[in-house]
């Protein structure tokens, strides 16, 4: 993965393997969204689903993470049946794009590369991505689509992005280290 160009890392390679992985990621997103959450606030829960785009992003890049989160959210809404809120789906997908940008700064999980500096960049990107997605994208879309009040939406989005950042950092970083260690054990061949 290290020798690919920036554009290739950004878009990912769309072969059958990526498609299947993104589909399974979307399904996992839907399951975690429906069954793996702890409610905190109106419209928002401490959902563990946002871990899925991190994993997809680590393996395939930001665009696959974006698709997995977007499709996963739509599917989660259809299964849960609580109505489809496009403002939050698009917000989640935008956040996924930032969270899943791991290959762009050199964290190649599938090759076992994930160090402390990558974890720091990852945490910063989590905060930045959630702020953009839920501080700008979602409130605007909520007001435009559903006529929600801007102030209330900002508060909800604030709570939502805080809980997302919490989950992505507290759960995400240990999982990324574990994954990297596991992949490293498999690819233990060195060039002499």
């Amino acid at each position: 993965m290290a020798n690919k160009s920036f554009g290739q890392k950004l878009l990912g390679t769309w072969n059958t393997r990526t498609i299947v992985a993104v589909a399974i990621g979307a399904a996992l997103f839907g399951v975690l969204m429906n069954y793996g959450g702890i409610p905190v606030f109106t419209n928002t829960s401490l959902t563990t689903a946002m871990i899925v785009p991190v994993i997809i992003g680590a393996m395939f890049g930001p665009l696959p993470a974006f698709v997995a989160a977007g499709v996963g959210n739509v599917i989660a809404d259809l299964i849960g049946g609580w109505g489809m809120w496009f403002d939050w789906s698009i917000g989640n997908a935008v956040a996924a794009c930032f969270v899943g940008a791991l290959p762009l700064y050199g964290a190649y999980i599938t090759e076992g590369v994930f160090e402390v500096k990558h974890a720091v960049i990852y945490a910063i990107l989590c905060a930045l991505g959630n702020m953009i997605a839920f501080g700008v994208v979602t409130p605007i879309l909520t007001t435009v689509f559903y006529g929600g009040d801007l102030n209330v939406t900002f508060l909800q989005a604030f709570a939502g992005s805080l809980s997302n950042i919490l989950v992505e950092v507290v759960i995400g970083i240990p999982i990324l280290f574990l994954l990297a260690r596991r992949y490293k054990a498999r690819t233990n061949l060195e060039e002499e």
Partner: protein
Amino acid sequence: MNNRMVINYTPGPTLLHKLSGFTKVFLFLVMTVAIIATYDIRILVPLLILNIIEIVSMKPNYKPILIVFAITFVTVTLLGNVMLFLVSPDAGLNNVGGNHILWQGPGRLYISKEFLWYMFVVFIKRTTSFASVMAFALATTPSEFASGLNKCGLPYKVCTIVSLAYRTIPDIANDFVNIRNSMMMRGVEMSKKASVWKRLKNTVYLLVPLIFTAFGKVNDIANAMDLRGYGKHKKRTWFAENEPTKWDKIFRVLTIVLLIATVYYVVMYRFINPWPAKFWCPWLAREEVISVNAIDTIFFMDWFKK
């Protein structure tokens, strides 16, 4: 777990179930656009009634729908409105454009007729949106959804993602329950007994095996699909997409009529002859409406002005 699922995996017997995938997806997309584009109760109520008729005509199992609706009502509408009242009691003035005060509370809190109207319209709008998603979820099977999306112009690889994701959801949900049970048996506390922080840390023990079992299947499925020649050609036909029947044609025409009506409404009432406020209100004449710029209502804009 399964009794909470609303979507069907097998096609049902009624007229709406038998429509082709494209008809349903097209109707749903246009319906969503119509609901999103209008803040007018004169449009939303007919759409709501239409969607309720659709739901009733499919003779669904009402219990999960009503449970989900009750949960959504409590969390989104009740809590949301209490918050709305505390955070911005001016919402009536900002969105409807009038200020008939009914009750003056302490400080900046007050209830106006327009505030109640705003709450009511937003509730109708959200309920209509909910009903349209419900009608769509009840009528459509995953394969029909994917084939309909493909016919709407989405690349077929994305449509495969949709149908494949649906296909794997029951498996992953089973894995999730099994892993959670076995982890709880080993003493990893997930229930409400543990604090939120503890539960958050324990989730790692649950997610890691779940991720490995889920993504462990990727290579097998991808190889099986490659062996069957997936992705070789630019186009793909769908087993679920049938020749349009008489009813399909009728529904497609009705959908196009709805689309034209929505576009006409938006062009007429938003651009050519715009209503001064965002929401229409029966007791305010056009001259009486106070129009407020939405950007000025955000609380942190005040900080910049000072």
